[in-house]
């Protein structure tokens, strides 16, 4: 309470505050202490009374007058000493006061404007916070614009920054000059243990001087350096700030021991809380420590380079140099790199990934809402200004200059904008927390999104710009209008029509139709996505992943034995119909791939074989997940035994490599000729395609390898089919695995349906949000149409009354109004459709199986809009027919 009073003291003029402020605060404190003895309520009442009295004192002291209660005391000091003597400020104060009075006098219009502004500014503030926090905010590295991620792109493989091999990376590092420093990283998931706590945690391998490239130092201890990345040294690790707190609390983490992947590591440093690389989920960094042989490897694609451009080298120069280096590598190692090109992507783009288009689209959506809101408010103000024409004319006739009147009018709209903007920030604050809840969980950099000073500044500017935008035209019109006409016309308004108002309505209709169409197209996309069959039956399946610490389970046989035993035990659980496992779950990610080699069609050594994703599975996998065997057979227990090397391929692989013929019976091997995953194997069957990364992926290639053939696979995802609710099996499954080995954590326990649903979440949140904005736009536009027509009817009452008096039927009168409204809506719809087709191309990448100009969607939203608009036009037109000519004509 004391704090509020002290703050309120700042309302007093400075001289008064300096002279009496401290005393007043002391008195207030004593009064409250005294009242508190009577109870909290008494104290609250006293505080309230004191604050009200203070406000009164401040208001009057600033105006150089005493409040009514003390007015007589002014005689004590006649002539009164004024606290202010700034003519410009006085004038502004006067303008603001006048504007405030006017806003209070027309509460309906004011409330409508403020609410409209608050919603539009609020939506903009929230979405802009996201765009700023995710896309625009600099990364937490000095000169981050010079940081790039290096990767390679192999023709025929997926597009985007793809990882590279140690051999290529070390060649880049040695042969380029356009970088100040270059390092590499790779994400890794390992089991972290301390005491009896064991969790699978995402970390990163640091190759070379990662932290030197990023130019960040540790908050405690030290970072990893190039000298740490030498094979054979003791295990050391640097932890993320949050992770260190989670595991060590307030205790000093540096110097402590952690087991990572079964190997002891000493913590040498803790990073500051804002440090995140490559993303917020990465919790630790360990030196990669490749041995000399592995540094030459050219068929293990898992590294990404990160480098700092020299200040003189721009992105094009860097790319040109990388291409030159890559040409050399290609000549030296033709088979491994024949189709490969180097890619250089700014780090920020790499971090933001594919969130950009979606966020920009949302921002586009809310900006449209804001424009529509401004048009709406401009319309309201124009309507009001028509009523005030006489007032302005009289003021002008009495000698007010038009610049003064213009300023006065603009002050009004700016005041409205300021109030609306302030309310908008409050709305934005609420909306932002809701937005963060709705956005997909994998939105990059979402952790750092907030309503910060930058966002507030932009919001203030936008609100100001809105005030100018919706205030200028009415102000100009009023201050420079033909005032003498207005005076002469008397109290009765002329029926003059303002083309600007019609234009505003057309603009509103056009823009909101565009938004509505955008939302419609995204909805169609989402329903199309939901109709996509993932290629397996996710319902009734529980999935979870178990990763073995490789340092403990060193031998392939030990790993195979663990998983086989786990499957046997899980199979025996009540409620489990079948239990199987795979190295990678469907829709959960691309997983790993390898070069695909057909024995009967060998490639020349100068050509790189195409890479195809593969999965290591247990024999019953196809049955448990309901993946159909289309040709040949599935896998059996015997497949993978010596002399029985068999694999199954997906239909997409069969189509690609054996177009028009049967793949069954052919033999393949995966990997480089001198580094095969397994010796060659026979294709014994073709199964249906299963979506691997997302529901909208174009092809779903996969080679299924029996577990027995790759028995050393250290991490398997289990799938349990059950007739009961899948997640109800989770506890039993965990218990089984804990009984086998308590040190092996189970993670990502969820229903398979959830994995499928999660892949829809970006599309779903876009639909919800754009849909919300579209509804806002539609509402505003309909209110706009309604408002303008209602006003028009009111303005033309006399004319309509005369028409009725001389015999026009009510139908004819209604049609007169309807026609005008419908014409505006019609033009708006046509323009909106054109705009939609033009804009939809820009977010084509977000659409799935829907053309940007999908006729069905466009027709549907046009009809929806027309229906809403028809209602908005109908009501005022009905009112027009109820004009009572005798009453209206008597008024004149």
């Amino acid at each position: 309470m004391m704090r509020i009073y002290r703050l309120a003291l700042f309302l007093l003029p400075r001289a008064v505050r300096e002279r009496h402020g401290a005393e007043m605060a002391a008195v207030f404190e004593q009064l409250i202490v005294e009242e508190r003895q009577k109870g909290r309520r008494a104290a609250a009442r006293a505080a309230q009374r004191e604050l009200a009295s203070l406000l009164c004192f401040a208001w009057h002291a600033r105006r150089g007058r005493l409040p009514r209660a003390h007015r007589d005391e002014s005689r004590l000091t006649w002539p009164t000493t004024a606290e202010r003597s700034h003519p410009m400020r006085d004038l502004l104060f006067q303008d603001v006061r006048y504007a405030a009075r006017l806003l209070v006098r027309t509460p309906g219009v004011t409330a409508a404007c403020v609410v409209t502004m608050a919603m539009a500014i609020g939506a903009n503030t929230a979405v802009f916070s996201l765009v700023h926090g995710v896309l625009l905010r600099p990364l937490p590295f000095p000169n981050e614009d010079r940081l790039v991620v290096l990767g390679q792109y192999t023709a025929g493989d997926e597009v985007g920054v793809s990882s590279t091999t140690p051999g290529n990376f070390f060649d880049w590092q040695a042969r380029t000059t356009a970088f100040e420093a270059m390092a590499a990283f790779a994400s890794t998931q390992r089991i972290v243990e301390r005491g009896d706590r064991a969790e699978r945690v995402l970390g990163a391998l640091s190759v070379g001087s990662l932290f030197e490239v990023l130019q960040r130092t540790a908050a405690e201890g030290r970072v990893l350096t190039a000298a740490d990345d030498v094979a054979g040294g003791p295990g050391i690790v640097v932890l993320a700030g949050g992770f260190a707190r989670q595991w060590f609390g307030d205790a000093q983490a540096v110097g402590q021991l952690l087991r990572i992947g079964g190997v002891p590591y000493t913590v040498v440093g803790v990073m500051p809380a804002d440090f995140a690389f490559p993303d917020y989920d990465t919790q630790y960094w360990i030196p990669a420590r490749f041995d000399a042989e592995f540094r030459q490897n050219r068929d293990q694609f898992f590294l990404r380079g990160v480098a700092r451009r020299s200040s003189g080298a721009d992105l094009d120069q860097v790319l040109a140099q990388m291409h030159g280096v890559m040409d050399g590598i290609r000549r030296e190692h033709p088979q491994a790199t024949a189709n490969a090109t180097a890619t250089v992507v700014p780090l920020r783009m790499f971090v933001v990934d594919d969130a950009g288009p979606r966020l920009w689209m949302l921002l586009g959506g809310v900006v449209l809402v804001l424009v529509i809101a401004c048009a709406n408010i401009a319309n309201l103000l124009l309507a009001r200004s028509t009523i005030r024409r006489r007032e302005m004319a009289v003021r002008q006739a009495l000698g007010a200059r038009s610049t003064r009147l213009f300023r006065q009018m603009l002050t009004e709209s700016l005041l409205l904008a300021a109030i609306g903007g302030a309310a908008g920030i409050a709305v934005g604050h609420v909306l932002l927390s809701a937005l963060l809840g709705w956005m997909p969980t994998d939105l990059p950099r979402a952790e750092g999104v907030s309503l910060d000073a930058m966002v507030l500044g932009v919001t203030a500017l936008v609100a100001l710009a809105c005030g100018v935008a919706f205030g200028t035209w009415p102000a100009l019109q009023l201050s420079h209008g033909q005032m003498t006409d207005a005076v002469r016309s008397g109290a009765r308004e002329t029926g003059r029509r303002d083309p600007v108002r019609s234009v505003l309505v057309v603009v509103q209709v056009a823009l909101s139709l565009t938004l509505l169409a955008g939302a419609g197209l995204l909805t169609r996309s989402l329903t199309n996505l939901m109709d996509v069959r993932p290629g397996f039956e996710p319902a009734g399946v529980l999935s979870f992943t178990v990763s073995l610490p490789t340092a403990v389970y060193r031998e392939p046989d030990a790993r195979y034995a663990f998983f086989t035993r786990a499957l046997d035990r899980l199979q025996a659980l009540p409620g489990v119909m079948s239990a199987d496992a795979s190295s990678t779950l469907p829709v959960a990610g691309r997983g790993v791939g390898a070069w695909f080699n057909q024995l009967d069609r060998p490639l020349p050594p100068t050509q790189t074989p195409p890479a195809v994703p593969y999965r290591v599975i247990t024999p019953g996998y196809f049955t448990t997940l309901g993946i159909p065997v289309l040709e040949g057979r599935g896998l059996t227990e015997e497949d993978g035994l010596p002399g029985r090397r068999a694999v199954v391929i997906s239909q997409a692989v069969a189509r690609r490599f054996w177009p028009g013929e049967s793949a069954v019976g052919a033999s393949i091997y995966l990997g480089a000729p001198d580094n095969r995953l397994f010796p060659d194997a026979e294709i014994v069957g073709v199964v249906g395609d299963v979506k691997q990364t997302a529901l909208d992926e174009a092809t779903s290639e996969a080679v299924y390898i029996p577990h027995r053939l790759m028995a050393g696979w250290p991490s398997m995802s289990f799938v349990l089919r059950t007739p009961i609710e899948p997640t109800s099996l989770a506890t039993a499954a965990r218990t089984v695995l804990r009984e086998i080995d308590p040190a092996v954590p189970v993670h990502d326990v969820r229903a398979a349906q959830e994995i499928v649903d999660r892949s829809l979440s970006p599309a779903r949140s876009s639909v919800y949000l754009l849909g919300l904005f579209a509804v806002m736009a539609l509402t505003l536009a309909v209110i706009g149409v309604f408002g303008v027509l209602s006003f028009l009817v009111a303005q033309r009452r006399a004319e309509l009354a005369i028409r009725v008096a001389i015999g026009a039927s009510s139908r004819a009168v209604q049609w007169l109004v309807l026609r005008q409204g419908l014409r505006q809506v019609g033009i708006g719809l046509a323009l909106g459709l054109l705009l939609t087709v033009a804009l939809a191309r820009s977010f084509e990448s977000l659409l799935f199986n829907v053309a940007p100009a999908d006729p069905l969607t466009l027709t549907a939203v046009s009809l929806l809009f027309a229906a809403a608009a028809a209602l908005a036009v109908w009501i005022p037109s009905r009112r027009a027919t109820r004009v009572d000519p005798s009453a209206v004509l008597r008024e004149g």
Partner: protein
Amino acid sequence: MPDYPRRDRAERLLPLTEPVFHILLSLSDQDLHGYAIIQDIRARTGGDVDLTASTLYAAIKRLLEGQLIKEVRRAAADDPRRRYYQITALGLEVARRETARLERTLRLARQKRLISGKA
């Protein structure tokens, strides 16, 4: 401020508002700080006149400007935020005249038998 003779100046300031009159009354026989003035007035009027901090200091500001009261130093041990006020000769004069004016008004009311007592 124009320098009127004290008598005239005092006359020009009448009538006083209730808060101002009570503040002058409180200070007529002792020097007090703000909170003590509020308490003194409340006790004397049985709670009928209860000033807020703002009303008090709005009045004190004017009284200081009009030189009816002045600030005086007090014991160092006291709360440093507290300031003590003392009535000036002009203040005393104004208070006396206001009392006389009220007395005249009261007498008129008695003559009209609005209240009982000796006219």
